[in-house]
């Protein structure tokens, strides 16, 4: 599904090197987790994959089902099936959540040469999916993320994911700022989307999210590289001993 090879990235402004040769393959149907200390490059990886400005790729490649992602515009990557759930979802005053969702869904359908959804069809689907995420009609009407609590914002991200039906989902510290109940709700939303044709890359500091979204593979990232890969037990080890042991082991 997602194949990252020898990815080197630096900041456009100043040239600071952030990713120093990331190699990662995420297969369809699998959930991979990336853990790592602050400043290891986890969030940068998610931004570079989704096409945010400000980063220069100096070497390497990232393909989604064989298509080179790094040459595409952000909206093309989205239409190709990539989705990033933001750590800090952006507030957009004055644009209704529903309008935003419908614009996004139909833009992607258009880009893929599919028929746009009518207002009626769209409404039916969105209501159904919102219900399972406990997003009420009021939240759908409100401007995008404005006045939403931390939990509501993250649920809204998952609703967007559910509506857009991407093939490759990246979750950037989706657990940050969430209490246990909110995290469970978000995890349930994600789990409902697990599918043999869909892959997930879950970026997190803590093991606790992985209690709810069970990963198949866990990677440890440090200083711009993936330094260790293992099964779910690796996350437990981090939870118990911190990153220091793993870093020391490799030093």
């Amino acid at each position, binding site marked *: 599904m997602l194949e990252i090879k020898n990815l080197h990235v630096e900041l456009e402004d100043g040239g600071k090197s952030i990713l120093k040769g990331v190699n990662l393959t995420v297969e369809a149907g699998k959930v991979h987790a990336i853990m790592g200390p602050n400043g290891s490059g986890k969030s940068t990886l998610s931004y570079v994959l989704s096409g945010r400005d400000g980063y220069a790729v100096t070497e390497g490649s990232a393909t989604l089902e064989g298509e080179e992602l790094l040459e595409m*515009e952000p*909206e093309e990557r989205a239409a190709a099936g990539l989705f*990033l759930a933001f750590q800090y979802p952006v507030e957009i*005053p*004055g*644009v209704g959540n529903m309008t935003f969702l419908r614009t996004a869904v139909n*833009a992607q359908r258009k*880009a893929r040469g599919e028929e746009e959804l009518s207002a009626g069809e769209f409404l039916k689907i969105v209501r159904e999916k919102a219900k399972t995420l406990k997003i009420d009609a009021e939240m759908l009407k409100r401007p995008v993320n404005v006045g939403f609590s931390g939990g509501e914002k993250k649920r809204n991200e998952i609703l967007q994911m559910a509506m857009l039906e991407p093939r490759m989902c990246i979750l950037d510290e989706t657990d940050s700022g969430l209490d246990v109940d909110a995290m469970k709700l978000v995890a349930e939303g994600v789990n409902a989307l697990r599918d043999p044709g869909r892959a997930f890359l879950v970026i997190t500091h803590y093991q606790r999210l992985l209690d709810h979204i069970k990963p198949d593979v866990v990677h440890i990232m440090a200083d711009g590289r993936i330094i260790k890969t293992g099964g779910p037990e690796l996350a437990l080890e981090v939870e118990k001993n911190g990153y220091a042991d793993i870093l020391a082991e490799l030093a």
Partner: protein
Amino acid sequence: MTALVKKDARRIDATEARIATLTLPSGGFSAPARADALARLRAAGLPVRRDEYWKFTDPAALNAPEATAAGAMAEIGAPLFAERDRVRIVFNDGVFDADASDDLSLAGVEIQRLAEADRADLHWARDLYGVLEARGQSPVLRPHAALNTAAASDGLLIRVTGTAPKPLHIHYTHSGETADAILHHCVRVEPGAELTLLETGPAAARFNKVLEVDVAEGGRFHHVRAQGRDHARRAITHVFARVGREALFKSFTLTVNGVMTRNEALIEIVGDNAVAHVAGAALGDGKDGSFHHDDTVFVTHDAVACESRQVFKKVLKNGATGVFQGKILVKPGAQKTDGYQISQSLLLDEDSQFLAKPELEIYADDVKCSHGSTTGAIDETALFYLRSRGVPVEDAQTLLILSFLADAIAEIEDAEIAADIVARLEGWLARRRR
């Protein structure tokens, strides 16, 4: 006149040259007001660039004896508010167009044309015509408004005695290349009465318009106007409002295109617990020649526990210029005033500019007044967020521009009218991509 004006030969010459081209109606109820206004204009002289409130806007083309030529452009798509049930009155180049107008009849509202009413010596509008304009000359001179009162060729005199069941819509069409229109409307909202007034259309090559609105106790007045289309047109407009006890005054203006537009709003709140909101959304593309848009607003609180809002937003590109000069004056005794003012610009490139002069002057000690002014580019994070959801970059920009304008549009109370305005904005933005 209370303000001191530096008199010089050039100002006097320009003023006299302008007056020489005016046709001053004589007789009728408005005659004394017109004579007084002409005297005010002569005493003040037309504005010059060094006058305090004309530093950001060059008045030369407004002062000139003749209007600069401006071609009339065909309307695109359905006319604004076409789907609303309304009474529509049309002026073409400032001349009443009877064929295009509905009957001047609306339940709860008396509507007359100024040119016709002015045959009589007695009229209710005698207490309003030029009266609020004259009050608005202090502490800052507004010579073009005095010129208007002196020389207006026509307009509507609207007396609202009940709740109007539908809006009154004044549409200004433009056909003559050098049409120079001067119109003056008076609206008197009687106690407890309510009216929505819509104004649309380019009007003329040069348009000088005054709207005097007197909202009596408990009255409600909603004003929504859209100035647009013709790229080369120029306009100077004044809204003078007096807002009485527990009354509501709301005015929203959308401006797209136009070489030069100066909209002044002078709101005087004279009754306790009244509410006055004035808002504007301007979108300018310098590519169409040039775009200069100036909002000059002066809100005076002269009563207790009143609320005022000034919400002005401008989207500027390709060398367009936006100006905002806004003041909240809280007079002694106007306690519990709640005054708010925000002016913001969204600059879509580095060639455009926004000039803002916010002012507060407060002579009461128990008030809440705030003001803010910002200028900036499209938020890159928000743009990326939308694009990451598959929204193409230009659609994402459009959404963010509408988002930026939302607070101003929210000042329109009627949801359908607001939706019409948004549709007009979307059309304009769609035509201006790339």
